[in-house]
């Protein structure tokens, strides 16, 4: 009794933190589903009695919505796949092979990981202009690839070093080539690491705003979702229902990926896939 009483302030604090974390997201989703009269009520409606899909249809019907979605998806997927492929090679070289210049390479990757990207907006713009890469989605893919690559290498490397190389060596003793040993033994064990890094790469690229805003100017159809969403007041005016519906649709892929992958990633880390 006294124990639970003593824990009361602690649990109350925990509840406050939970509410502060969840409320903005809850409010976004709620507003997206709320009928317009409820949104415009002088006293906010926290638990609606009826829900509507009209805001979602307004958002989806907005000019170019689907092409912005497609653009974002293409750029993000391209960046994640490219970064994963390139990072896998580098992470393998760093974690498994001994070579001259390895330390220098790792240091370079660490520095690149905290590169001040916002300071590179102007030269990137000038370079893209010079090379006729302005207003093109592949340019964004390349930039995002570079932003996510260092982090992907660092994370994959630590996942790789956590997998005992004796497993690979055992497969090699059993007659596998080194490449086959890597593919059949290490790669499956690396799956949680690959999922985790692609998840973070996806979030970074899906969210990126500054470069998308700087490098796609003339061709408005080639904009990505964050840029479009940031200019919502030009699109929806003060129609908060439609704005929140668009925000929800923008947040949805990331939240779904997080929910689906997070458990697997966590399970892979905690369960110690190597033990079994």
């Amino acid at each position, binding site marked *: 009794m006294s124990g639970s009483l003593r824990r009361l302030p*602690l*649990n109350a604090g*925990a509840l406050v933190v939970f509410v502060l*974390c*969840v409320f*903005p*997201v809850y*409010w*976004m989703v709620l507003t997206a589903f709320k009928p317009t009269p409820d949104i415009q009520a*002088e006293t*906010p409606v926290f638990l609606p009695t009826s829900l509507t899909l009209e805001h979602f249809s307004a958002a989806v019907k907005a000019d170019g919505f689907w092409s912005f979605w497609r653009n974002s998806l293409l750029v993000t997927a391209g960046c994640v796949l490219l970064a994963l492929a*390139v990072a896998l*090679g*580098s992470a393998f*070289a760093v974690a*498994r*092979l001994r*070579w001259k210049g*390895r330390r220098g*390479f790792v240091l*370079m990757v*660490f520095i690149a990981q*905290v*590169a*001040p*990207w916002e*300071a590179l*907006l*102007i*030269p990137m*713009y000038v*370079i893209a202009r010079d090379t006729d890469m302005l207003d093109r989605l592949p340019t964004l893919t390349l930039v995002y690839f*570079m932003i996510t*690559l260092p982090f992907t290498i660092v994370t994959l490397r*630590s996942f790789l*070093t956590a997998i*005992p*190389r004796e497993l690979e*060596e055992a497969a090699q003793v059993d007659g596998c*080539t*080194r490449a086959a040993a890597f593919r059949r033994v290490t790669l499956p064990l690396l799956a949680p690491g690959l999922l985790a890094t692609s998840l*973070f790469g996806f*979030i970074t690229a899906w*969210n990126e*705003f*500054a470069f998308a*805003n*700087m490098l796609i100017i003339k061709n408005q159809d080639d904009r990505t*979702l*964050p840029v479009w*969403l940031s200019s919502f007041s030009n699109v929806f005016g*003060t129609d*908060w229902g439609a704005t*929140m519906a668009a*925000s*929800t649709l*923008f947040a949805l892929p*990331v*939240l779904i990926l*997080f929910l689906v992958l997070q458990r697997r990633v966590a399970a892979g880390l905690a369960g110690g896939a190597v033990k079994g």
Partner: protein
Amino acid sequence: MTRPAARPGTAAGPVATATAPASGPAPGPTPAPAPAPVPPAGRRRAVPGALWPYLLVAPTVVGIAFLLAYPLVRNLLISLQHYGMAELIRGGADFAGLDNYREILRDGEFWQVTRRTLGWTAINVVLIMVIGTGVALMLQRLGKRMRTLVLSGLVLAWASPVIATTTVFQWLFSSRLGVVNWLLARLGFDSFQDYSWLAHGPAAFTVLVLLVVWQSVPFVAITLHSALTTVPTELFESARIDGAGGGRVFRSITLPLLRPVFGLLLCLEVIWVFRCFAQIWAVTGGGPGGATTTLPVYSYQVARSLHRYDLGAAAATLTVLILIAVLVLYFRQMFRQEAEL
């Protein structure tokens, strides 16, 4: 982000070097003393084994060279040229020496923006670290069910895309029908009835601070929490049995354990908040009246609105120089922690 897996990584270092020579005789019966880097599949491919590592890292090196190093150099170059609209279209900018730096350092607005950026960074980082640490320590004490609840809330806030939550905050703080104004008016602060947050400098600044703190605390709290969970609970228990009070346990066990992670997080947050652009640009665009213009926003405005790419590049270079001071601290901390790279 790299925390949980970093520990086994360092442990695997000596193991790896110890087993490398042992795998030498396995691929071939050649009695010759094998060189240190073992080329296992080397005889099957045309590429000699010693070249493999370099081929594997080549795409990364090329990427960093062209997409990071070159733009950095180009930025420096532009900052030393007269580079405006005409040069952008025609090309052929001429050398200006340090004129741009002189111009920008003489500009009162630049110094004002720099001071504001430092203040912005200090306020945000202190709030983020204090709240993040508080939440992490709270998580450690909570019961299992409450902890799961709070953790899932943190993950939800952390996973929410920046621009989406930026838009939501604009709705929360909207002057008409915004929940925050309604709540403040309900609590008796009648002046907040239909208060226009984004039209007043300090208020707009406050909204941005709340937004960035809200977006950043979950990462700090979750990282510190997972650092705390790697500590065996016996350590805390035995300290308690030895008669250490709560404050003593915190000072003697929790704090020393958290210090390295804390240092890394502090540096990362300083960098992130200092560089913060998207939130500021999307919510206020640097306004009202420049009240929320930080260095990245300033550099962007100078380049895009005034077409003074040279001045913008000079401001960006100065931004990088300020950040490098923080980065040096960051790397010192990191090398101390990861003895072997």
